[in-house]
C-alpha cells in the first residue's frame, strides 16, 4: 500500500469534514474491496476515514412498511437479524450467501452498494425491492442510483447513511455463484408488491438492471411457467473466463424461474 493517513470518524459530520478536506480521501466501510485494491496499488488515497464508530450509520429498524438498515451494517448482521428475517427473509438469505464468513463479518451494506461491483449481491435486492438509498443530504431511488460498473449517482463527498427497503408481499433471490469467490455469475431478485412485480438482475451486466419483459409476464401470471419463452438477450452482457454472455443470459432465465418458484414455495 502507498502511504496514507488514518482517521477514525467520531460522527457523520466528522467523516464529511475529513472527506472534504482530504486531497483524495476514501471511506473505510468494510474494506473488503478497498483494502485489496490499495494493496494491489490500484488505489492510492492519501486519507482513509474509518466509519466503524459512526453511530448515525448503525442500526436496523422497521418504519411502517419499510425496513431501514444503517449503511455500516455488516452482512452477518443482516443475515442473522430477526427483524429482517421476519419482514424480508429474502434479504437475510441473500446476505447469508455473500462471500464467506470472513467477508460477511466485515463487509457492509453501504460499502457494497456504493462500490457497485457488477457481480455484487446487494444491488439486486436494492433494485428488486425498489429501495431508497439515503445519504447525508438526500434520498436516491434505486432505479436512479446504479449507473454503471463501479459507478453510482453518489457525489464525490457524499456518504450513504442507510437504505430503506419496502417490505414486499413475497420475494426471493437466486444466484449462480462463482464456486471460488461466490460472487454472482448471474443473480436474480424477484419481489411482488400486490399486483406489481420487480425483477432485478446482478452479475450478468455492467451493473444491476431490471427485466421488464419478465416483470410484465409475472404481473399477469406470477408463476415460473409465465417466464417460459422469454428470451434474455446476450447483447451487452458480461463475458469473462467464468462465463460467456450467452451462458449468463441463459442463467438469468433459470435463476428468475427459481426465484419465482421460491416465492411460491414450490
Amino acid at each position, binding site marked *: *500500500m*502507498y*502511504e*496514507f*493517513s*488514518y482517521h*477514525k470518524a467520531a460522527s457523520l459530520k466528522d467523516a464529511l469534514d475529513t472527506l472534504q478536506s482530504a486531497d483524495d480521501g476514501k471511506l*473505510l466501510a468494510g*474494506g*473488503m474491496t478497498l*483494502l*485489496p485494491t490499495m*494493496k*494491489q496499488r490500484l488505489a492510492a488515497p492519501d486519507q*482513509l476515514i*474509518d466509519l*466503524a464508530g459512526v453511530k448515525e450509520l448503525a442500526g436496523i429498524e422497521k418504519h411502517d412498511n419499510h425496513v431501514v438498515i444503517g449503511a455500516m451494517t455488516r452482512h*452477518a448482521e443482516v443475515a442473522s437479524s430477526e427483524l429482517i428475517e421476519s419482514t424480508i427473509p429474502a434479504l437475510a438469505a441473500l446476505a447469508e450467501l455473500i*462471500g*464467506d*464468513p*470472513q*467477508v460477511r*463479518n*466485515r463487509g457492509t451494506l453501504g460499502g457494497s452498494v456504493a462500490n457497485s461491483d457488477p457481480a455484487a449481491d446487494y444491488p439486486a435486492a436494492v433494485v428488486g425491492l425498489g429501495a431508497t438509498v439515503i445519504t447525508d443530504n438526500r434520498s436516491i431511488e434505486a432505479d436512479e442510483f446504479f449507473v454503471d460498473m463501479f459507478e453510482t449517482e453518489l457525489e464525490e463527498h457524499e456518504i450513504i447513511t442507510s437504505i430503506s427497503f419496502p417490505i414486499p408481499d413475497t420475494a426471493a433471490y437466486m444466484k449462480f455463484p462463482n464456486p471460488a*469467490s*461466490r460472487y454472482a455469475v448471474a443473480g436474480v431478485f424477484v419481489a411482488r408488491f400486490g399486483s406489481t412485480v420487480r425483477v432485478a438482475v446482478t452479475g450478468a451486466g455492467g451493473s444491476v438492471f431490471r427485466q421488464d419483459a419478465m416483470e410484465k409476464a409475472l404481473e399477469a401470471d406470477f408463476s415460473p411457467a409465465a417466464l417460459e419463452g422469454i428470451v434474455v438477450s446476450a447483447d451487452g452482457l458480461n463475458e469473462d473466463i467464468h462465463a460467456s454472455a450467452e451462458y449468463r443470459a441463459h442463467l438469468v432465465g433459470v435463476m428468475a424461474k427459481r426465484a419465482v418458484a421460491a416465492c411460491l414455495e414450490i
Partner: protein
Amino acid sequence: MAMLVSTTINGDATDFSCEADETLLDALRNRLSMTGVKEGCGTGDCGACSITLDGALVCSCLVLGAEAQGRSIETVEGMSDGEKLHPLQQKFLEHAALQCGICTPGFLVAAKVLLEKNPNPTESEIRYALAGNLCRCTGYDKIVRAVQDAAAQMRRA
C-alpha cells in the same frame, strides 16, 4: 506517523505501535512476534490469516492495525491450555488434517468459532463455516473429519 494501539490479545492487555498503512496481520507478526497467524494471499481470499475480532472471524490481512484499537483479538496462540492442545488441534494431528500447515492456524480459529456457536454441526454446516479458508494440499475431507471428531469429543467433555 506511528500510532499506539491498545488491544486485548488472547485475554492479555497488549499495546503495540504501528503505521497507518500496516495491517493487523503485519502488526501481529512483526511487532508482536505472533507468527501463528499466516499470510497467504494478502487479499482476503485464502483465510490463512484468520483471527477473531470481538468474537467475529475476520481476515487480519484486511484489517488495519489501527482498527484494532480497543478491540479483543484471539489467535491460534490462545487455543491451547499451556502444553495441552485444544481438542481441534489434537484432532487435526490425529486425522493428519494438514500437510504444509500454512492454512492450519486459520482453519483452527474458524473451526473454533463454529463449534462455540454450534457444538454439533452437520458436514454441510462445517463446509459452509470453513468456506473462507483454503487448503491447497491436504484437501478438505480430513479437515472436516477432524472438526467432526473434535466436536464429538467436546460434547462429551
